[in-house]
């Protein structure tokens, strides 16, 4: 009997049946979705309360810092108001002001990966909300990752820092294409990625901005991160560089899924 059970188990594990696996996972995740949302809310409340308690001790110092920051910001604001006026005029001139290149579905992050083997988070919206697999997920800080394993009411988001996440990207300054691949996290907890397959004749500089190229499922021009280390191999055809994907640093509370279905034509 044990032999039969073991054989069945090994078949489940090693015979790839993606649709059946996704259905089973959908059932498990659907069952636990309510509890997950509740726990997520409680966890967030605790996190905020802990942050508030930590803040009480340094309130005086913080107040002083904020006062200095306010003066500095006001000076900057005066300077920026002129720039903004120019900016608005130019935007109107080129009719880009109301341009929305893609629709977005706002989603709450309800949980993180259970085993720690994957760099992923789960969002509380799925197929019923118009989300499909391989859609780009962004936050105000830039590209977060892509959707994978989308079930009816939840979706997994594979973060840019995961080795299984690959994004067609380009170096904005020199307009050169490459492939961004996740590289896990450093021992200090900083997520990292690397941009590969860049022609070795191109000069890459530290702090060069890396954005999505627009090839594949990802929209064009979404910020991914800045180069922080360049690796040159004299014997190879290509060079690669390390970058820190800024949007995956720290805890994510909410993200936006870029929805092709809501795409609007540029005016």
């Amino acid at each position: 009997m044990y032999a039969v059970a073991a054989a069945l188990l090994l078949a489940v594990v090693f015979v790839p049946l993606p649709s059946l696996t996704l259905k089973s996972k959908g059932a498990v995740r659907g069952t636990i979705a309510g509890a997950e949302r509740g726990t997520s809310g409680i966890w967030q409340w605790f996190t905020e309360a802990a942050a508030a308690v930590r803040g009480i001790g340094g309130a005086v110092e913080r107040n002083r810092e904020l006062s200095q920051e306010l003066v500095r910001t006001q000076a900057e604001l005066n300077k920026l108001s002129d720039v903004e006026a120019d900016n608005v005029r130019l935007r109107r001139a080129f009719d880009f002001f109301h341009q929305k290149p893609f629709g977005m579905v706002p989603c709450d992050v309800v949980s993180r990966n259970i085993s720690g083997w994957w760099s992923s988070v789960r969002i509380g919206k799925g197929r019923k909300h118009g989300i499909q697999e391989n859609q780009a997920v962004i936050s105000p800080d830039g590209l977060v990752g892509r959707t994978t394993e989308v079930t009816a009411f939840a979706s997994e988001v594979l973060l840019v820092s995961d080795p299984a996440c690959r994004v067609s990207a380009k170096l904005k300054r020199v307009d050169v294409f490459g492939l961004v691949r996740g590289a896990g996290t450093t021992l200090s907890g900083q997520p990292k990625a690397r941009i590969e397959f860049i022609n070795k004749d191109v000069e890459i500089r530290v702090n060069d901005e890396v954005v999505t190229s627009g090839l594949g499922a990802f929209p064009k021009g979404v910020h991914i991160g800045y180069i922080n280390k360049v690796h040159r191999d004299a014997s190879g055809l290509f060079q690669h560089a390390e970058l820190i994907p800024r949007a995956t640093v720290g805890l994510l509370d909410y993200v936006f899924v870029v929805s092709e279905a809501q795409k609007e034509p540029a005016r």
Partner: protein
Amino acid sequence: MRYRIVMLLTIVLGALLQQFLPTWPLFGGIKPPILAALTLYYALRRNAGEMWLAVFAAALLQDGLDLGSFGPALIAFPVIGLLANRIRNEVFADGIFTQLFFGAVIGLFTTLIALFVYAVTGQRPLFFGLAVLRLVSSVLLGMATLPVVSQIVNRLEVFIPERRGYGWQ
């Protein structure tokens, strides 16, 4: 029936807690094996029927909530449950040294199985240094998790009347 419901609720709560706990990069990103610890806890203290219920609930939750195919927990947890249930009359399950030892074993075993499954199916890239770090970390995390989980569930079960079904007592 009441024990089974409490057991399943405890496993669900364990799964939620394991999900929400942050990962520590110094431990290779491995999470504390709460579900594996709960599986072992019930395997050492309950009969075979309840052990299998706990094993499959924990395994389905762990693999169902994780990315990738079903696998690491579905292989590791039944083995842990089966072996622990067989020796439950021969070990002092509440002893701290027993728990430290078993915690280390389940941590190491679940990580080894995960490494094996991911290596065979090619779902995760394997780097030697990271694999060693994760194996060592899983031993330490297992040793830290099992005694805590055992204490909490022991105290929780005190509140349930008509305590019964402990094989070693």
